[in-house]
C-alpha cells in the first residue's frame, strides 16, 4: 500500500496503452501521513544539479528534486524571456538585388548578433533617436562586379564574379557615441561570419544600415537566445522477472542502444539493465506478449535532464543563470508592487 503510494508520488508510469500518474499530487491534504507543505530547508537538502556536458554552445545538466511547474518555467523563460540583441530596424538606401526589401529586412533580423544584452537597455516606444545605451548599428554595403581576371572558360560564379555572395562578414559595426571606447574596437559582430544573406550578379548592389536593439523572444522569435531548450524525465527500467536466452536478445532490441546488456554465464544469456538514461521510452517492449510482464517502465518525476543549445550569443550556462534571475525578478516585482499598493 505504502509502496504503491510512494510510486504514484514519485514516478510517472509508462504502460502499454497509457501514461499514468502524470500530474504532481504532493500537496498538503492529498496524502495522509505526509508533510507536503513547502519547506525551504528540506528543499535545499534534496535539491541537486549535476552538469554532464558543457561547451561554448551546448550544455546538458540534471536538475533533481524540483517540481515540473518550476523546471518548466525555466524552460519557457529560456525560450522567450531571456533578452538578446537583434536587428530591429533596417534602413535601405539601395537594393537592386532580386531579394525584395522586406524579405531582406526579415533575413537580417534573424541573424544572431554577438553582443552581451546585459550591457544595454530596452528602447522605449516614444524614443526618437537611438543612443549608445540601447542601439548597435551595422553597415552592409556590397556591390557585385565582374572578375576581369577570370579564365575564359570559367562557369563557376565564384570565379566569374567578385562579391556575388553577401555574407554576414560584410556587416561592418559603426559605433554610436562612445561605444568604441567603452567596449573596444571589434566588440560587436554577427556570431557567424559565413551566413548567406543574398546573392548578387554584376551591377547589383545592397546598401543599408541596420539598428540592433535589446528584446525578448516573447516579442519576436529572433530575440530567442536558444536554438533549443528542452528537458526530459529520467527513465527508469526495472526487470521484474529474469529474461534469458533468445528473449534476452529480443528485449535488447526493444530499447535504445546501450540500455539493455546481454550477459552470458555458463552458456545462458541473461538480460540486464545497463543504462536506463539512454532510453528514449519508445515502449516497444509492450508489443511482445512474452516480454510485457517482465518489465516495468517509469520515469522519475523530479529528475529533469535539461538540454540547452545556445545560438552563440551567450554561453549556455550564462543563459540558464539569466533565466533563473528572470523568474526571481518577476517574483520580486510583484512583492514590491504589493508593498507599494498597501502603503498607498
Amino acid at each position, binding site marked *: 500500500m505504502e509502496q504503491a503510494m510512494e510510486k504514484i508520488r514519485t514516478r510517472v508510469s509508462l504502460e502499454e496503452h497509457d501514461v499514468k500518474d502524470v500530474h*504532481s499530487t504532493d*500537496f*498538503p*491534504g492529498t496524502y495522509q501521513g505526509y508533510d*507536503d*507543505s*513547502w519547506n*525551504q530547508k528540506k*528543499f*535545499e537538502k534534496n*535539491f*541537486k*544539479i*549535476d*552538469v554532464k556536458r*558543457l561547451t561554448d554552445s551546448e550544455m546538458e*545538466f540534471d*536538475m533533481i528534486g*524540483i*517540481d515540473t*511547474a*518550476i523546471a*518548466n*518555467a525555466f524552460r*519557457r*523563460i529560456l525560450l522567450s*524571456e531571456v533578452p538578446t540583441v537583434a536587428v530591429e530596424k533596417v534602413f535601405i538606401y539601395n537594393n537592386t538585388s532580386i531579394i525584395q526589401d522586406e524579405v531582406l529586412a526579415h533575413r537580417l533580423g534573424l541573424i544572431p548578433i554577438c553582443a552581451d544584452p546585459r550591457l544595454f537597455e*530596452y528602447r*522605449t*516606444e516614444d524614443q526618437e533617436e537611438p543612443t549608445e545605451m540601447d542601439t548597435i548599428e551595422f553597415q552592409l554595403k556590397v556591390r557585385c562586379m565582374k572578375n576581369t581576371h577570370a579564365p575564359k572558360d570559367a562557369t563557376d560564379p565564384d570565379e566569374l564574379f567578385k562579391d556575388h555572395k553577401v555574407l554576414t562578414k560584410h556587416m561592418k559595426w559603426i559605433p554610436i557615441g562612445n561605444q568604441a571606447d567603452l567596449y573596444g574596437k571589434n566588440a560587436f559582430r554577427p556570431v557567424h561570419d559565413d551566413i548567406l544573406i543574398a546573392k548578387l550578379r554584376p551591377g547589383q548592389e545592397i546598401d543599408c544600415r541596420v539598428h540592433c536593439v535589446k528584446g*525578448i523572444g516573447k516579442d519576436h522569435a529572433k530575440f530567442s537566445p536558444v536554438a533549443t531548450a528542452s528537458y526530459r524525465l529520467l527513465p527508469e527500467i526495472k526487470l521484474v522477472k529474469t529474461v534469458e536466452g533468445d528473449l534476452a536478445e529480443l528485449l535488447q532490441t526493444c530499447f535504445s542502444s546501450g540500455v539493455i546488456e546481454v550477459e552470458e554465464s555458463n552458456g545462458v544469456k541473461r538480460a540486464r539493465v545497463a543504462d536506463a538514461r539512454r532510453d528514449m521510452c519508445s515502449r516497444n517492449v509492450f508489443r511482445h506478449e512474452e516480454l510485457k510482464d517482465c518489465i516495468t517502465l517509469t520515469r522519475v518525476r523530479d529528475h529533469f535532464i535539461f538540454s540547452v543549445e545556445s545560438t552563440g550569443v551567450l554561453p549556455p*550556462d550564462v543563459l*540558464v*543563470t539569466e533565466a*533563473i*534571475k528572470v*523568474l*526571481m525578478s*518577476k*517574483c*520580486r*516585482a*510583484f*512583492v514590491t*508592487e*504589493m508593498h507599494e*499598493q498597501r502603503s498607498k
Partner: protein
Amino acid sequence: MESEGKKRILEVLQLDDAKDETCRTFVMHGEDHTLGNSLRYMVMKNPVVEFCGYNVPHPSEDKINFRIQTKTQPAVDVLRQGLRDLSGACEHILATFEEAVDKCKKKQNEEVEKMDMEASL
C-alpha cells in the same frame, strides 16, 4: 515588461465580498503560464490554502487571473508568501547551478592540463 515599470502589474478584482479576505482573484499583467503555474504550485504547497488556480482569459491579452481561496488567512498574505517562497527557491537553485558549473569547468580544465602534460612527455 521591464519597460512598463510605471503601469500597475497587479490588480485585485472586486468580485468577492470585500469583508471576506480569504478569497481573492488577482490579475497579473504581463504574465503567462511561466509565473502562473510555478506560483500556483508554490501557493498550493501552503497548508492554509483551500483552492488555488489561474487562467489565461484570452491568448491575445497579456495577463492571467490568479485565484486564491484560503481557510483562514487573508489571500493577499498567502500570495505574498508564495512569491517569497518561489524567489527563495530560485535563489538556492541559482547558487547550486553556479556551483555545479564551476565544478564542471574546473574538471574540464584539469583534464586539458592532464592531456597537455601527457602530450609533452
